[in-house]
């Protein structure tokens, strides 16, 4: 075992403990504790956004700025890939 592997094992086990605890402590599957925001969206998205699909309503209207960010991430990745594979000589 190298030093690196030991450090990795410690890191890994700490994260593992944290994750397992968080999985066990989360609310039981299918019964979220709080649903106020989502229930509001379900009830009103058809009226306010005019979209039958509530998810689209969230993606493009309620959280539209996230979608702009998401589109920007894709744009960034494309620019990055083209930049990395460019010709190096003029």
């Amino acid at each position: 075992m190298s030093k690196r592997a030991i450090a990795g094992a410690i890191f890994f086990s700490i994260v593992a403990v944290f994750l397992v605890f968080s999985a066990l402590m989360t609310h039981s599957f299918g019964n979220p504790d709080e649903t106020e925001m989502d229930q509001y969206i379900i009830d009103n998205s058809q009226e306010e956004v005019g979209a039958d699909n509530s998810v689209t309503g969230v993606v493009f209207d309620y959280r539209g700025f996230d979608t702009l960010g998401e589109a920007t991430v894709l744009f960034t990745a494309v620019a990055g890939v083209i930049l990395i594979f460019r010709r190096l000589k003029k």
Partner: protein
Amino acid sequence: MIYNIPFIAVVALVLIGLYTVVFKRNLIKIVIGITLIESGVNLFLITLAYRQDSTAPIWHGITASSDNVPFMSLPVPHALTLTSIVIGVAVLALMLSLVIHIYRHYGTLNVNKLGGDEE
């Protein structure tokens, strides 16, 4: 406890991915590990959306005022997962193109053998 099995699956996915990233020395395997972590987190988000006996949050030919409105799952985690998937694709594309470049330079994918030639 038994109702938390989906979350246990999430943790298993994340941990497998983390194990791959921490202990494997192959660049492609590291990329796969990161993708696994990302799938785990996405799975976590989407499991948060589920409510027992719920349908997809789509109003098909009905409105909120009509009778027998179905019980719907939460829409926000769906949107978050969608965003997170696209971000994952972007990260994956960039990582793979860097791996291609590293392979061109060093002729190996092993992390330990990189950095041989100082420029």
